[in-house]
């Protein structure tokens, strides 16, 4: 029978391998799956490629993961955040590769990866430094860039509730990259405050259908990054 719930965040990420590409949901702290990120730090995989909109703040969550030195490359639209010191240090020291992608192109590349679309054309970034080296093409008299779909080995996502089939609901603007990262990852892991039995969620309101989710794990009281940073928390 289908039951995608796993007992702990550690179990959810036990098989992450060195060199894996990891998509991490969240826009700033909203939707940042802190407990899963901390479990990934504990797990110890190295040479990771992280795909995420931001690069974390303080020394918890994504920033703490980067600080371990186990992230080789970040694919991201906005690595500069208030209270962000970890990323700049490693970046300036040449210890971290950055692929800067416009936010909408990042979102569309992730969706494309999940939807079996290897490449698409977009008007975003045409004529800018971020178009350098990219193929361009004109449709109906306007110039577009070709961009490639993005896939990942794992996605770490924060939802509000899920059922045992992996159907997921989100909370307000914490939804952001969750649904598309679940599509693009071989193994999508979603932490939620509550896992319920299949049938308890209204099929009309499910945001991420279970087919896109491989593991769900209950984190009843997730931490908020801004609170941890305000407390001066450091992980681990």
């Amino acid at each position, binding site marked *: 029978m289908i039951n995608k719930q796993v007992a702990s965040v550690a179990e959810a990420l036990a098989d992450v391998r060195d060199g894996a590409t990891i998509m991490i949901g969240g826009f700033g702290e909203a939707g940042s799956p802190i407990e899963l990120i901390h479990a990934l730090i504990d797990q110890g995989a190295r040479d990771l490629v992280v795909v995420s909109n931001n690069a974390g703040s303080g020394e918890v969550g994504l920033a703490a993961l980067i600080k371990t030195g186990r992230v080789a490359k970040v694919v991201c639209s906005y690595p500069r955040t208030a209270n962000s010191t970890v990323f700049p240090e490693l970046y300036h020291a040449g210890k971290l590769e950055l692929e800067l992608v416009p936010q909408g192109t990042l979102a569309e590349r992730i*969706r494309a990866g999940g939807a079996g679309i290897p490449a698409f054309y977009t008007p975003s970034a045409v004529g800018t430094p971020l178009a350098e080296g990219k193929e361009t093409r004109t449709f109906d008299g306007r110039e577009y860039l070709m961009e490639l779909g993005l896939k990942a080995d794992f996605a770490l996502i924060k939802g509000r509730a899920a059922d045992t089939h992996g159907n997921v609901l989100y909370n307000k603007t914490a939804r952001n990259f969750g649904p598309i990262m679940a599509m693009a990852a071989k193994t999508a892991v979603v932490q939620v405050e509550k896992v319920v039995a299949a049938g308890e969620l209204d*099929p009309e309101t*499910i945001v991420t*259908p279970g087919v896109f989710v491989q593991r769900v794990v209950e984190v009843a009281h997730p931490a908020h990054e801004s609170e941890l940073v305000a407390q001066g928390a450091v992980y681990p």
Partner: protein
Amino acid sequence: MSADTPTGWSRDEMAKRLAQDIPDGSYVNLGIGIPELVAKYVPEGRELVYHTENGLLGMGPSPAEGEGDPELINAGKRHVTANPGASFFHHADSFAMIRGGHIDLCVLGALQVACNGDLANWSTGTADAIPAVGGAMDLVAGVRSIYVITQHCTKTGEPKLVEKCTYPLTGLGVVTRIYSELAVIDVTAQGFRLVELAPGVSFDDVQQRTGAPLLPKQ
């Protein structure tokens, strides 16, 4: 071809035989016709999630006569139900599931299957037919495994398993396994290979009715 055509499996037996091969927890899309029968035969203790490309995961059985909802239908436009754990979604999301490799198995009917896995199942190519393709080309391009369930030959006795398809193709090299009333046959790099014979059917019975060489069971 022999006049003593062996009977082999009934349609329901074919569907039941195929259902044995679907692992627990699979996401499965069933085509229209014989494929729909597969849903009746999920082995005890397994749970499958049926995807119907018009926008439902967790498709359940047909409702009781007269209780159908015209807005709860499957890809064959028949009334269905929604199981616990079901979800509704729009067409672009539904085909993202298909094209993106998220559906484990699709079971389809066939007009012809070639020994290299090419499938023809949408058109006989006759000039007066109205061309209509639906989601077949997306399914064969995107779903991880494609099983064909079909009568071994056409009504006029022509083999459906052939060296090379003569009808317009649905996809190239996509079929992995075939279930007919006579046998279960894998499509391998070497061509058709017997997996299992139906009761009372011999290897020669199958080879005689197959338009390409059949390799023996391994």
